[in-house]
Structures are given as C-alpha cells and as structure tokens.
C-alpha cells in the first residue's frame, strides 16, 4: 500500500482499495475510483467532477482476471474492452466489446469503468443486462452480489468497489447490434442484445438507448420462449416479426425515457429498437434469415418506398446452400 499527500492512491489489493475508499470518506474527502479513465479523466478536466482523492486500480491485479467456472464466467472490473474482444468464452460479449468506441477507447476502458459511469446506452451494459449479469462489489460490510439491473437502478454505494461481473456461460448464440451516427467509432443511439440459452430454453433481450438504463424486453422474451422450437433452436420469420413488434410496443411504453439527443428522435429510436431486436433475434435463431440469397443484394432503385415496417426482413426462402448459420455466438458445444 502506498499513501501520498498528492491524493493519488494506488492500492494493490481489493482490500486495500476498499480500505482507502473508506478512509478517504471518513476524512471527508471526495474520492473517485479510477479504472481506465476514459470517462473520469475528461470529466475531471472539464470540471464536471471534482475529487480530492483518486484511487487508481491499475495495480490491483485481482481485478484484471477473467475466469471461467463450470457454468459461470467472471470478469474482473479491470478487464478492458480489448481484453474481451478476443475472448472466445463469450462471443456475444466479445462482439459487444468490439463495437465500443474506437481502438483507443477499447484499449483503455474497463468493465468496472462502464459500471461506474453507467451510461444509459453503454454497449457493454446493454449486453450484460441481456446476459443476466451480476455485479460483485466489496465494501467494508463485505462482499455483495446483486443483479446488474438492481445495481444500475439503485443509488451507488459510495464505499463499495465493483470487483467483477458474473454471467452464465453461454448456452447458445448471442448477439449485440447497435446504431449511431456513422460507420464506426460512435456512441450507440439505440442498441439491442439478444442472448439465447438453448439448455435452459430461454431467450433474453435488452434494449439500450431508450430508457435511463438498458431495459429487458420481458413480453418479447416470454413470447420467444414459446415461439422457439427448442429442439432445433430456430424460429419462423413471422416469429421474428412478432418479436420485433413486441419490442417496439415495450419501448413505446417505457418511462422515463432518455431525452432526445442531437440527432435522433424518440420515435425513431423506438422504431430502430424493434428493427434491431428483430434482426438480433433472427440472427440467433433463424439461419434462413441470417444468410440471405446473394442474388437479392442489388435491387433497382424504387420509385416509391412505403413506410418500412420492422417486420419485413427480406426473403426468407431457404438458401440453396444450407450454410452454417451466420450467428455471432456458438452453442454450448462450441464454447471451449
């Protein structure tokens, strides 16, 4: 442990970090926990956050661990997005991490940072919400485990350190889709994660960018559970359309919603949430939709275009080549 009058503390264990946090609070000092710094450091510079003590977690090696148990994955709060991009044990999570910001942000930002900042449209949090993740914290009262949604909804415990998130090992395909203002390196305006568990016969769906935190699409999930042919892990394309409609309905009913950003509108975001959900659902469950006929890719310009309902997903004629479904996850047998 190292103390310095400068206000920068660099613990090397979780215990030390928690102790420092408590000590700082006891001394009446405003303290900040520093993960990668991608949110905190710009906020400090802009004067949006004022702190007297910074507890840098870079040296807490136990926070940098990614672990796999028999049926659970544990990801330390110090793990970066880049660390997750290449992680074969959770391809869905890897995909969500891959589309976070830019290479610079992915190399620096951490899981703990995402939880601490709790941005409403956070790519990682949207995925973790769908993955039923739990947040592990340690405070002077001891370790605690709570569902992510509860963690995000509650006021943060000022003396607790997020040490890890825990989620089930993938039991089926999972994907994460998002849209924003350009082709790459942008914040999500709307996003959607779908996580399928073919063992437990469940499908989870979370939408980010509409509510103040990522929201689970409970009705759509219930519908999916019934609609999926769990023997094959597939659905009809009509089911994808229905699923998308249910997500649209659920997002319409959401309160409170995020204020409108500079570019979007709430109605568009609701529309887009339905489209992304239908797409993610189909990608996980319907090989025919996931791999359309190549011949149909270049259509002549249409003189008129109808309002494009999210329930049209193009030709769902089975492809001549029963290629492997283009999904972003692997079944349990695929994970190793």
């Amino acid at each position, binding site marked *: 442990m190292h103390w310095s009058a400068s206000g920068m503390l660099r613990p090397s264990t979780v215990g030390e970090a928690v102790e420092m946090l408590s000590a700082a609070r006891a001394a009446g000092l405003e303290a900040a926990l520093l993960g990668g710094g991608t949110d905190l450091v710009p906020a400090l510079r802009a004067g949006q956050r004022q702190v007297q003590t910074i507890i840098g977690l870079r040296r807490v090696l136990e926070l940098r661990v990614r672990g796999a148990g028999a049926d659970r994955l544990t990801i330390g709060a110090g793990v970066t997005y880049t660390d997750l991009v290449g992680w074969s044990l959770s391809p869905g999570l890897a995909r969500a991490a891959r589309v976070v910001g830019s290479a610079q942000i992915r190399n620096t930002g951490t899981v703990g940072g995402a939880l601490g900042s709790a941005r409403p449209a956070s790519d990682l949090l949207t995925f973790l919400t769908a993955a039923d993740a739990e947040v592990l914290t340690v405070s002077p009262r001891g370790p605690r485990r709570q569902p992510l949604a509860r963690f995000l909804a509650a006021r943060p415990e000022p003396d607790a350190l997020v040490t890890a998130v825990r989620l089930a090992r993938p039991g089926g395909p999972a994907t994460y889709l998002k849209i924003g203002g350009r082709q790459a*390196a942008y914040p999500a305006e709307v996003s959607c994660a779908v996580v399928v568990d073919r063992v437990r016969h469940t499908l989870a769906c979370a939408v980010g960018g509409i509510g103040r935190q990522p929201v689970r699409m409970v009705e759509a999930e219930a519908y999916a559970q019934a609609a999926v042919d769990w023997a094959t892990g597939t659905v009809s394309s009509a089911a994808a359309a229905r699923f998308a409609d249910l997500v649209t309905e659920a997002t319409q009913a959401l309160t409170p919603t995020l204020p409108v950003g500079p*570019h979007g509108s709430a*109605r568009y975001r609701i529309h887009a949430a339905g489209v992304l959900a239908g797409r993610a659902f189909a990608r996980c469950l319907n090989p025919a939709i996931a791999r359309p*006929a190549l011949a149909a890719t270049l259509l002549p310009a249409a003189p008129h275009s109808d309002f494009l309902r999210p329930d*049209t997903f193009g030709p769902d004629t089975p492809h001549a080549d029963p290629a492997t479904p283009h999904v972003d996850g692997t079944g349990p047998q695929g994970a190793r």
Partner: protein
Amino acid sequence: MRRPDGPAKVHGRFRYVGDLQVPGMLHARTLRSPHPRARIRHLDTAAARRVPGVAVLVTAADVPGLATYGLIVADQPVFGGVRGEVRYAGEPVAAVAAVDARAARHALAAIEVDYEPLPPVTDPRRALAADTPTLHPNGNLFREIDIRHGEDGVHGPVVVEDDYAIGMQDQAFLAPEAAVAIPAADGGIDLLVATQWLHSDREQIAACLALPEQLVRLTLAGVGGAFGGREDITVQIHAALLARAAGAPVRIAYDRVESFLGHPHRHPARMRLRHTATHDGELVSVTARVLLDGGAYASSSPAVLANAITHAAGPYRVPHARLHGLVVRTNNPPCGAMRGFGVPQVTIGHEAQMDRLADALGLDPVGLRVRNALQPGDVLPTGQVLGGPLPARELITLVAARPLPPPAKHDPTGLSLPGGLPAMAEPSRVRRGIGYALAYKNLLFSEGVDDASTARVRLALAADGTPHAQVHSACAEVGQGFVTIAAQIARTELGIDQIELLPADTAVASAGSTSASRQTWMSGGAVRGACAAVVDRLLARVARAAGLPGPVVETARRSLTITGGQIVGAEVGLRMSVADALAMGPVEAEYTFHHRRTTALGAAGQGDPHVAFAAAAHRAVVDVDLDLGLVRVVSMALAQDCGTVLNPLALRGQVEGGTAQGLGLAVMEELVTDAGRVVNPTFHDYLIPTAADVPDLDFVAVTEPQPDAPYGVKGVGEAPTCTATPAIIAAIRAAVGRDLRRVPVRPHHLVGPPDADPPDADAASGGPFGEGPS
C-alpha cells in the same frame, strides 16, 4: 515536389500555435454567456481577481479602442458589456490570464454576472417580423439581394417547386483556436496566431486596441486546419488586451467546446425553389427565395449571401430568373465563412430541383444537366457573361462514365454495409442508389473587391556561396499546401533549388485571405511576379555589367535566360553563373498581384461580380439500410475543372478533403441548437466522417487553363465540397424514392412516414418523429 513542412509534421516537431511556449507566459481563458440573449445588469470581477494565480482580467470596460470588430462590418462586441446585450450563447463576457489554465478556469467560475435573460429570436423566418425586437443597432437584416434576369412571368410548362433546408455545419478544424500575445517595448504588441488572414486580423486588433497598425505585428504560427473558421477574429483581441494589461506574454487557447462556440459556422439555409422547363427539358425560369440565418453578428454574411444568391440557379443556362435572398440576424451562433461560402447550400437546392425536374420530364438526370449546362459566353442571372473555360458539360458526362462499384455483397463483418459492423445490415434489405450533382463556384473575392496579394522575393548568396532565394508572403498556410506551391513557383521562375519561405507575417503587405480558392492564383501570382521582377533585375544587372547596350539592358529578358543556375545569352555571347551575378549583391523585388476588376451588384442584382468560376461534378453511390435508414456512401467519383495543375498531390488532397466535408454535411454533420444554445459542441456529439465513412475517390481532373490566372491555375478546394453533398443526397433519394428536403439526411427521414423530412422542422424536434405534440 513535397511539402516543405512535411517532415516536421510527421515527426510531431511542427509547432502549432498551441504548442508555443514563451518564458513567463500566462494562460488565458474566456468567460462566455450561457444565454442566447440577455442584458448584463451587473458584472463583478472582484472575487475572480483574487483567485490565486490570476494576473489580469479584462472585460468590455478594458477595451481602449473600438468596442466592436468584424470582417466586413464591425458589429461584434469584443466583450458583451454591462448594460449591453449579449446576443448569442457563447458570446465572450470576460477573459482571464493566470499562471496556468486551471487557475484561469477557477477565476472564470468566480466572476459574477447578473444576466437579465431576454426572449431570444432563434427562428430566422421571424427575424424581420414587425413584432420581432431589433436585436442590434444595425438592425436585423444583414443584406438582401434581389436578382432579376430576363423577363418577369415567363415560365415553362413543366414546373417543379419545393422547399429545402440545410442545417448548420461546423468547420471542425482539428487544432482549436489559440494565440500568443507578447507586449513589446515600443508599446506595440506581437502576436503569434493561427488565422486565415493576418492583415485583416491586424486591422481589427489595432482598431480595438487603439494602436496604429504598425505597432500590431502578427506572425502566423502553425495552423491546424481552417476551412473558413479562422477568417474571423476569435482569440486575437482578447489575447492582446490581456498581454498589454499584464505586461507579460499571454497564451490563450480554446478547448473543443469553446472552439465550437467561438467561431462562426456555415449558415443554415432555407430556400424555396421553382424551376420551369419546356417539355423537352430546356430550363425556362428559376425562381429562388433563399433565407440564410446569419446568427448574432455579421461576420461575412453579406458576402456569403451574394455568393449564395448569384449561384442559386446553378451552372445552367436560365433565360429568366428571379433570385431573391436575405441574410438575417438572430440570436443563434454567428455564421460566416466555410468552404464553399454559401454555394454548398444553394447547390443542395438546385441539384435536388434538377433531379426532380428530370423525373417530371422522364429524362435522365445526367442528360438534363448536359442539356442545360453553362458554356462560356452564356449570360448569368447577374448579367455577367461567363468568361474563361467552364467545362460543366464535359464534367458531368465524364463522371457519369466512370465505372460503377461492384454491388453490395454479404459481408461477414458487416463493415461494408450501412451502419457498419454493429448494425449488421441485411444485404437483402439494402438498396443502392446513384446520384449526380454539378456545380460551379466563384473563385477569388467578388463584387468589385480588389483583394490583392503582395510577395517579396530576395535572391542572394547563401553562406556556402550558392544562390538562395527568400520568399516572403503573408499568405496563411493552413494546411492547403501554399508553402509547397510557393517554393515550386520560385524554383521554376528563378531556376535555382535553394528556396526558403520566410514566416508569414505582417512585415510584408497583405496576401489577402486564405479562402475563396484564391491563394494559388493570387499569392501564387504574387510570388511569380516578384520572382519575375527579381529575374529582370538580375538579368539587367548582368547585361549592364557585360557592357551590353542600353536597350538590351532594359529588355534583358529577351536576350538572356536562366537555366541550370547559369545566365546565358547565346545571341549576345554571354554566359555567367547566377552565383557570380549575385556576387555583385543580392537582388530583391516586391510584386502585388491584382485579379481583373469586377463590379458590385447594382440595380436588380445586375453586374459583373465574379472574377472566374470553377466547376465540379460528383457521382455518389450509396447503400441504404431500408429498415433503419442508415446510409453508407459506397463510392464517390469526381470530375473537376482544375485549370492547370501545379501539384497533383496537393490537388488530390484538396479534392478528397473537400469531398469528405461534403459527405459529412450530407449524412451526419449538424451543429444543433435548442433555443439558441448549441447542444452538441463536442466530438462525441458532433460527428465528422472517419476513415470508415469516406470511400476512395475516383478522380478525373479536367485541366483547361484559366487564361487570366498565373500558369492558368484555378482554385480547387471549394467546388468539390459544393457537389459532394447533393450527389449523396441524390443517391439516397434514388435509393429510397423520397424527396429529401432536409440536409443532413437523418435515418428517421428515410424510415418514417413518407413526409418525414419537412424542411422547416428543426432537427432538435426530430421532425415528425419529434417530441412535440403528435
């Protein structure tokens, strides 16, 4: 020929103004009004002055000279003052210099300003209404131009009419504003600045400081991009005031948020256009009403309007036209120069009209343009006869013939499809569209302005005895590559290799602004003229020294030439090295280049306002995700009227960069205001294109020389910015079959109900998808 500043730039050794350190330097920050319109009741700086580390604080009360400044009209206060009004959210109210930027920031927080907020006028359509308050002693109208051409009331049988609106684009140059001001012993001030026009800055700074101009000395420090956004004063006067008050050097620097608030933007525009044509596609008349939102202060609004309205009918032969334009004052952020200077906005409008006219006529959009394209000798709506080459017809034909990109294909990464990897578009739900745009853009300053450029060249022997030339021009190198061109011209004209470009400063006469596609022509012309004068003097000296007769001395260039460092006169039997000739002493000359005179716009907007034009044609190919309304620009082809090309690499850089900025305006860039306040002044929220957004440019240069320009050059930076946006909009229109009247095009315009893009819907309200009652 490569950039002389290139090696320093790739190694990070090139000094931008924000990199400069001067011993004893203070750091300054600016306090800005949070209100778009307010009266300042009271301003208390006592607590701020007591903040540890604070050296000086200045407000309106500390401006010794003129209280206002401006490029054309000095209507903008240096600081909003007590009992005065602040007119936009972001208007400077005070500036502080302290030992470091943090202390200065703390001091800003300690300044107490008592504002009395007033209802802001943020809708330009209301600016001139009878019940709208007058926002400034100069009134709410910056300028009105009403061009009448041909006969009133003559129209063709085929009519296309609609409204278009374009949002506010920002220059978003990468290096935020900064300046270093150093008080001088002679009572004057030295400034190191990043600007587009040193002498205009000097004039404005001197007036506000109540100093004679010769005591205000500016030197250009490294400029990290400009695109029009550095034509206006931002940090300069504040830095000078602080440095003089402190008696110490002051560096003032903006961060990105302040940069977005601090400089004028591209004018948001609204326009109603009516095109009529014969049944076989001949344009008969164009009626345009264009309204530009100038924001709180004039900046270059009057000139931007002249550009917009004189180009409003596009590069087409139009027998009858009524082009009526207004630029008004509001409490929105001030708008001024940005690459294209009023022409990109009207090009978006007239090119949409041409496409829709082609639809109405059942003609091909390229064919309609070819048929109506201007040719030299045609009369423009101002009555100006189009001179010089303008291969508009050739350009659109050329660009239409470029090979098309391969069709969209299944891409496991999704990267090549709309929305990129994370949106994962379904190729079967992606539709391709192809669009064209043709435009012309004036070159150099217009309306009778003599924006001359002066350069000085000194040819002497270097320490090692070799000939060495120093070129001195006040032309602001902002990235465009004038330093390369100037050295290239001097090398060519002087026939020697050692060329040194002196720092651009006010020790030499004005080079005019680095804008209006003018510097290669104007300052290139000045450097060339100065070099020629140096050569004349050198040759005359050699002829004289060789005892040649008087008439030969006077016209030495006829009998003597410089090649390979040798002065040769075959007929007069003379041969002397340049080095030997210079051993007699250095040769120096100054030359001022003027372009041909133009005239102001007179009655009915008639005159000969523009020096010359350059044209460009873009073809855009886009893919649209039909379900999400996401657009990916697949390919861009450009054919451009470039005049003589002096440096192919610099040309390519200009047209690719101009295309990228036009792409940004088409699909992503807009500074959004809500009740006058900018809501997205960061690179997190104001997105500009990345490498993943801009496709490779297929570029065809048409190189017909401009007769009255040095070497036959034309300016090249602006025309492609004008055409890139409407070509992309046209391609999206073709893909989705919607009118698309609001730019930038947003996804919700493409997937909402068919009328999802009313041009009058403010972006903040999201159009019909908006938050209002629906």
